[in-house]
């Protein structure tokens, strides 16, 4: 029964509901909409003091910045795909586990989040570096060294490590609500475990996969510390450019414009992903 159809006037449109929402709305206006307005107005400031879209033109007419935007989006998409492939089995294992095994699995996957990003990145440098633990082990076994740092590979390894829990736990929470009797019924009717998985389990866990993907995508294209420490000049992404503009160049309008571009891109991706959901999941 939709709110509009209630004859007594109660529902979402009522005064009581609005009063209840007021605190949240006020917080959103002050701490979300407010800074956004400040940011947008900052991005319209040009060097000669005029107001205009000069900063945006600077970004959108320069092939370098367009390349960086492209790299940022690809980075986000690739990380989302990799964490989906690696995180789903982990999420499945967590959902189906019980007792202390479940706790251990959850702790193992959440552990990276307990460490500060800078410390974590330095840890990866020690492991992946030219003289690092991994290469030392490979050399001892007679293999040649791998170039796992100061490139997209090293950065991606470290990013997947910390983003995996968001994917795995989203999938796990959806799978936990799945009624096991559906799987049992499929088995009783003659479906193999593989068929049961693809026909029953996977479609019903799609919601969790989509939630995890949204989280991973948003987090990956907003992070820069790992890319700064484990990457190099050619592994450039938009958040890192923004960071440079704010701390070294102190070009706030330019940084603000890049921030708005990043926000618009993320919003566009999130909006378009809603079309990927099956019809029955769309609100």
């Amino acid at each position: 029964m939709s709110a509009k159809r209630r004859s007594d006037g109660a529902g979402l449109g009522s005064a009581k509901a609005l009063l209840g929402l007021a605190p949240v709305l006020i917080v959103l206006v002050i701490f979300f909409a407010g800074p956004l307005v400040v940011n947008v107005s900052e991005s319209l400031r040009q060097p000669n003091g005029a107001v205009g879209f000069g900063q945006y033109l600077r970004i959108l007419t320069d092939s370098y910045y367009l390349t960086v935007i492209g790299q940022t989006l690809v980075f986000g998409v690739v990380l989302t795909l990799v964490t989906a492939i690696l995180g789903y089995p982990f999420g499945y294992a967590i959902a189906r586990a019980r007792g202390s095994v479940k706790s251990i699995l959850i702790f193992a996957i959440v552990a990276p989040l307990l460490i500060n990003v800078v410390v974590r990145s330095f840890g990866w440098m020690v492991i992946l570096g030219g003289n690092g633990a991994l290469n030392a082990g490979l050399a001892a076994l007679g293999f040649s060294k791998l170039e796992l740092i100061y490139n997209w590979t090293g950065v991606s390894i470290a990013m997947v490590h910390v983003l995996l829990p968001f994917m795995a736990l989203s999938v796990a929470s959806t799978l936990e609500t799945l009624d096991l009797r559906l799987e049992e019924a499929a088995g009783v009717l003659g479906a193999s475990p593989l068929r049961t998985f693809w026909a029953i389990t996977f479609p019903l866990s799609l919601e969790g996969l989509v939630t995890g993907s949204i989280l991973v995508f948003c987090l990956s294209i907003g992070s820069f510390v790992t890319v700064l420490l484990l990457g190099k000049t050619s592994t450039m992404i938009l958040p890192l450019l923004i960071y440079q503009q704010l701390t070294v160049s102190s070009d706030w309008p330019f940084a603000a414009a890049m921030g708005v571009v990043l926000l618009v891109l993320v919003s566009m991706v999130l909006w378009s992903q809603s079309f990927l959901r099956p019809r029955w999941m769309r609100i």
Partner: protein
Amino acid sequence: MKRIVASATALAMLAAPVGAWGQAKKPDKIVVAAYGGIWADSVKKNFVPCFEKKTGVKVDVVTGESADWLARIRANPANPPIDVVSLAEADSLRAGQDGLLDKITVEKVPNFADIPAQFHKPWNDFSVVLNFGALGIMYNKDVIKDPPASWKEFIENTAAGKYGKRVSMPAGTYTWGPEFLWMLSQQYGGSIDQAFAKVKAASANVVKFWSTPVEALNLYGTKEVDIMAYWDGRAVNFIDKGNPWTGFYIPKPNTIAGSVLVSKVKNAPDVAWEYINCAMSPEVQAGHSSSILYSVSNPKVVVADDVKAKLTPASEVVFPPYAEVFPEFSKWIERWNKEMR
């Protein structure tokens, strides 16, 4: 009821001017910004006691970063949340140009007379250098038997592959990256194009251009690099910790400094000048220098010989003419991002 209101109003009217007069005369505390770690410790150990003894006003030390403090002062210039600030070179120049700081004079800060011009002229006297670190060369003495005597040799030898792919130096996008590029340009008659060309040629043998000193030390400590441009205080600290296989020196002809400046924020109480006077005094600076093992700006400072041996003298350090060069920095950063891919 009327009587209560009347007496309350009378009391308020009496208290108001007293309150205002009290504020104008002396606050009960001033807020000083300092970088975290050993800097803040030294501030509390050396500066705060001097000031509190002279004025009886307490000091509230806040730690953080230059960009953050500048943002806070910009947000509230009429009633600044920070009274004495330690902005980085570029931020100090900007803040001075934007009218957020007060000009330092000998009348207000007697010890300012001791400070050489190179430590305050680039900022038009709105800020003064307190201590500075010099960029030098740190190298593995066991591997590199004849380290480069000058910056020109360093960059050209690296390009020629003399040290193998085992070199590191600051990224152009590091906080003092643009200053590093300026210094290299000075080795080539002031040509920034030449500096970029030389660094590009050297980049094939650079493992990574470091973005933070901690990353640099990690590269060196894990023996990924044998020779690296790095800060003096940190290098000496590393050697002292039991690494005699490491050497450090300042190449010819001179080098750039990463400095900590100090300024009085506009509209901060006048008693804050006393803090800056403390900060410029030889006694306090001597204590500071011995605590953090970095060189300080007052040439009258006398430190123990073993401390002195570790410090870079002011004569070996040059500052870029910031007002001219600074507008170029953001272009150089963009150029670095595009060319060093």
